[in-house]
């Protein structure tokens, strides 16, 4: 294939990766920014979202579009409820101590993974896309559904941005993020904000999973790689910065696609990882964060 189309394809692929990554990383970033909690189980919320999407569509049967839309609503709600439960039972009692929450969420990771293995099984299972439309370009064909993921993600991101910056809920969250003690003093129910943020973060991961599952199947071990990538995005983007998270997701997603044009795949991964690591080393506050101390 000629260079131009190849690059176009790689960019499209990168954009799809970015779209999903941005949603997932945003969830992690919110939890991280507002609660200062490193949620290692975030990838498992993602996995749970995908598995539930399969369960919903398999139960409903019938038209894939209806099943998919139902999954898009039901799956994040259940995942959010699970997250809320975990928050109330565990994280809250740990006073959100950073180290303790890392261990606790690793424990959560094991539990969710094992439950998925026991009740869902070890196989990768597909979910039908709500529509199948292949866009025929002169050089190659491309999935219309994949392009729609980019659109859906953009809409969700804008909605989140709106909530964060233009609503009272967003204001309360930002106040808590800025200084939780002062927020508490001003009568903001910090504990409820934390619970809400943790659930919301998990729901964003679940939404990302439902969007991706028609193109990548549900599997009980699918959470780890997106988790690692999201961590990277969150750090590169700068803590709690929505714009930074989106730009970093674009950077990581697209560079992953484009670098693969020039190098053998594994070498491409090595180079991409190394480049991002070096960015962090020489700009540890992230691309958009301001130096914090």
């Amino acid at each position: 294939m000629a260079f131009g189309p190849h690059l176009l394809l790689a960019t499209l692929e990168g954009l799809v990766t970015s779209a999903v990554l941005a949603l997932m990383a945003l969830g992690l970033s919110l939890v991280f920014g507002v609660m200062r909690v490193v949620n290692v189980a975030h990838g498992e919320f993602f996995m749970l979202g995908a598995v539930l999407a399969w369960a919903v569509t398999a139960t409903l049967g019938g038209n894939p579009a209806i099943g998919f839309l139902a999954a898009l609503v039901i799956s994040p709600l259940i995942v959010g409820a699970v997250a809320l439960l975990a928050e109330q039972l565990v994280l809250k009692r740990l006073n959100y101590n950073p180290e303790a929450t890392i261990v606790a969420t690793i424990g959560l990771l094991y539990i969710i993974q094992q439950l998925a293995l026991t009740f869902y099984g070890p196989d990768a299972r597909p979910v039908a896309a709500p529509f199948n439309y292949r866009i025929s370009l002169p050089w190659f064909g491309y999935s219309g559904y994949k392009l729609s993921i980019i659109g859906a993600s953009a809409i969700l991101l804008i909605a989140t941005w709106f909530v964060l910056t233009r609503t009272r809920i967003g204001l309360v969250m930002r106040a808590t993020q800025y200084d939780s003690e002062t927020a508490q003093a001003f009568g903001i129910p910090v504990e409820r904000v934390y619970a809400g943020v943790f659930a919301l973060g998990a729901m964003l991961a679940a939404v990302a999973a439902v969007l991706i599952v028609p193109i990548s199947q549900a599997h009980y071990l699918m959470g780890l790689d997106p988790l690692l990538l999201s961590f990277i995005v969150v750090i590169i983007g700068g803590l709690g910065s929505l714009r930074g998270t989106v730009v970093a997701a674009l950077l990581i997603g697209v560079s992953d696609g484009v670098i693969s044009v020039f190098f053998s795949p594994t070498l491409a991964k090595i180079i991409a990882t190394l480049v991002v690591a070096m960015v962090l080393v020489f700009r540890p506050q992230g691309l958009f964060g301001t130096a914090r101390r």
Partner: protein
Amino acid sequence: MRHDGFKPAALHVAVIALLFALNFMLPDYHHGLLARIMVLAVFAMGYNLLFGYVGLLSLGHAMFFSAGLYGSGLAIYHLGWSVPAAFGAGLVSGAALSLVIGLLALRTTGVAFMIVTMMFAQVFYLSILYFAQWTGGDQGLVLQQSQRLIEVGGVTLDLTEPVTRYMAALGLFSVVLVATLFIARSAFGRVLVAIRENEERTKMLGYDTFANKLAAVVASGVICAASGAAYALLFGYVGSTLASVQYSILPLLWVLLGGAATTLGPLVGTVFMYYVIDVTSGYTSAYMLVVGIALILLVLYFPKGVLGTIRDRWVRWLP
């Protein structure tokens, strides 16, 4: 930690003596398992030096472990080096890698440090796959029994023989344990703790905190590499799984369970995790569930790990 060093010293001698005595008492399976646990406890102790004492949470220590693993393993497999030379190669690999990683990663702090170390470890892991021609990729390499013999003045030590292996593991464990105790009680150890507590203040006492942290990263890296090298030599397998991210998280878990910044915590944590998995996997294949719940309960009720809690509540002198 200025009072008489007798009790801690006696405790450590007693632990080593107990492990020595267990050689003659344990049934074969537990004997073999304990040898493995001691080697991995060394990994945990190396991790603890950085995480427990300096407060630097790395998510990439699998790369230091694997530097030792591959450094010694490849030296034997491709170059036919002797066991001691290969062990040395493992240590040198660990030292070199940790020096480079330390110089880069220590420019960052906090969460960025976690992520940077994790990414460097990922690069290391992918490189093992990329150079599969030499490393055996994900399948890894097997070191033959004949390659794992030490000739010492006419006597041949066979590292595949259970007791020799146990004693070699115990030897390494003891050396590192004593070294950790020594470091923890040394002037250097006091500086490391001060950096963990307040790095700015430590600088204002005239300490080059970067140099001290770098020294700690290298010391930690070398200890982890020693564990990796011993793993290759004693158990004969060198593979990329041991460089994957799980193996960076494991020492963190072991240390947190046993008690960060306690000298014996890494051993306690490693033994605990191993036996929880070993025992529960005998009853249910859902042992990950048990491990997960155990982790959460521990962190809820023993937040400072087993020995950390004991030190806080009962035994103040515990090092």
